[in-house]
């Protein structure tokens, strides 16, 4: 009486290949990120600028400090297009300034300073902000104190205080670390300790929510110490807001450094930065507009790129937006 309809009893037990290879979370993030054209442009431009200022001095080997007074006020090469009489030289593609210093190599050196200040100050403010945020979110006893401190810092007038600090502490730091080193430390520290508050607030909010989740409870129930919970379980989960605020921090740090240089309280006069080149060029911008435009465009494009990168990262790292 056995029926002939064949039921393959093993079909359910067979371990079939999954139709698609499994995708990691970061691949999804990358796919979403690629959709944001501006963000891709921003990322590529940031990488390009960073590489250019890192390796530029080895490719374009003209000394930025070299005073070539015979070839001063050379116009950039494209000035010859609309003005045949303009003084241009192929060996000085971006022209020279009023002391005969090559503008291309100055741009590279200035970008080095701006990017170095930007990255270091951003890292410093991230470290402070993440530390304060995690401690405030995780340890209830410190929460009140630390958040009041954050509020206090948020109500400080940042730009006036920056100006005060940089003008007043220039001399002693210069004496101890040399004119450039002292100024670098001063600007980085001052920008770092006045821009960590947003990161701290965001991280605290995330940590407060994460702390109540089951996996933290599980970790605690097997006897994980507080330090290990923070390192192994909390920090990896707050990486995405930290990355987004990192991009914002980089943009602010670059702008702040340039603003300080522009107001004449930044690096010493023979040390080029984009802000200082721009400030030096302003009095003669009617005759030589390119000297204002070049550093100005460099600052603006870098900041624009970083801001777009931040926008794209925020969209890509947000699971609610991803895949839409």
């Amino acid at each position, binding site marked *: 009486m056995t029926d002939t309809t064949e039921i393959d009893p093993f079909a359910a037990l067979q371990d079939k290949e999954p139709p698609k290879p499994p995708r990691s979370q970061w691949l999804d993030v990358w796919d979403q990120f690629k959709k944001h054209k501006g963000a891709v442009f921003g990322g590529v431009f940031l990488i390009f600028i960073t590489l250019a200022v890192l390796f530029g001095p080895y490719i374009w080997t003209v000394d930025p400090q070299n005073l070539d007074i015979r070839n001063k006020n050379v116009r950039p090469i494209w000035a010859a297009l609309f003005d045949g009489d303009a003084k241009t030289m192929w060996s000085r593609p971006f022209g020279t300034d009023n002391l005969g210093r090559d503008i291309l190599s100055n741009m590279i050196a200035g970008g080095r300073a701006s990017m170095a200040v930007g990255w270091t100050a951003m890292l410093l403010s991230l470290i402070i902000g993440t530390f304060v945020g995690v401690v405030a979110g995780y340890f209830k006893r410190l929460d009140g104190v630390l958040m009041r401190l954050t509020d*206090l810092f948020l109500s400080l007038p940042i730009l*006036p205080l920056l100006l005060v*600090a940089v003008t*007043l502490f220039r001399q002693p730091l210069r004496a101890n670390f040399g004119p450039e080193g002292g100024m670098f430390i001063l600007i980085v520290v001052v920008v770092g300790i006045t821009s960590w508050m947003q990161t701290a607030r965001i991280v605290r909010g995330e940590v407060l929510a994460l702390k109540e989740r089951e996996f933290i409870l599980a970790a605690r129930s097997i006897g994980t110490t507080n330090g290990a919970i923070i390192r192994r379980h909390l920090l990896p989960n707050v990486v995405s807001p930290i990355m987004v605020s990192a991009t914002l921090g980089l943009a602010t740090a670059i702008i702040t450094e340039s603003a300080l240089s522009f107001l004449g309280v930044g690096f010493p006069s023979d040390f080029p930065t984009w802000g200082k080149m721009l400030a030096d060029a*302003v009095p003669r*911008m009617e005759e030589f507009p390119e000297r204002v435009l070049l550093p*100005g465009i460099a600052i603006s494009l870098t900041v*624009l790129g970083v*801001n777009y990168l931040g926008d794209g990262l925020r969209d890509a790292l947000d699971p609610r937006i991803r895949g839409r």
Partner: protein
Amino acid sequence: MLTFTIRRLILSVPTLLFISLIIFMLLQLAPGDPMAQVPLTVPPEVKQKMREALGLGAPIYIQYLKWLYQFFIVEPQFLIDWMTRETVLFGWLPDTQLSMVYDADLQRLVPQQRVISWQTRSAVMDIVIQRIPQTLWVVGLAYIVGILIALPIGIYSAYKHYSVFDQTGTFVTMIGFSIPPFFTGPLLIVIFAVTLGWLPSIYDTTHTVNDWASFKYQMQQMVLPVMVLALQTTAQISRFMRASMLDNLNQDYVRTARAKGLKESVVVLVHVLRNSMIPVITVIALGVPSIFGGAIITENVFGVNGIGQLLITALFANDIPMVMTLTFIFAILIVFFNLIADVLYGVLDPRIRYD
């Protein structure tokens, strides 16, 4: 709501005191001698006397308390005296003599010691009061212009999400967000003042308005600084406006309103806009102090002699009382507008009740 406001007001007092302490200590730590400019022929004992006259001989905490007393008690007294003496509004009241104290040696009333600028040897607040109108005109107008441009852009680009207008608007606001004012300033000067010659490049603060031509000139010279400041404001606020509108446009109550057969303009401009304005208004309030800070650079570029430029010159001249007072005024602005933003949030959004 009232209790919340009062509690916040009281809480802002220690905040301000703490900020003033931070600024004071920062300035104390800094090296620099106000007597550095005095000629070397002046004998040291005279220099010592001059130092004491500036209040420098006393211990630090006495100097700090004295500054607090002068800023919070003496200066308002001078203000009240001035108002009852010279203004129309309070001039009918009998003249007050709050700021005067009886001097036993001279046998008459003498004015109290005020916060004195080391640069000019005149009262700091007098100079600040002279400079504030210039800043307020430029900064205030720029802020209003920026908001008026930003709101329609934000509303329309959220309504036409992903349209060409939205894409362009987002791109332009991103650019406005990224280009620093110390670049837009010179750029606009090159374009409008140098190449086209339409507008003056330097702001002339001695210019007085008494007829139509001078009024026109005043407007012309305000265009460039206002444009620079308004560009930044527009960028920030229209981004917020767009995001806030986008949040609200997908809500259920919007569908209900449309289902009721309301006109599209009513749905967007009444229902959605009113709800979207709640966070935007707080952002507008929070942005006021930061635009004062940003005006430091713009004033420097265009030569507007407002309080930002006053701060820079005071800093370079090592004029500690002036720097202290100005920085503290910026801090008061921040704390005050934070308070306003918090209170407004509660007033506008009935779901948020603080007490």
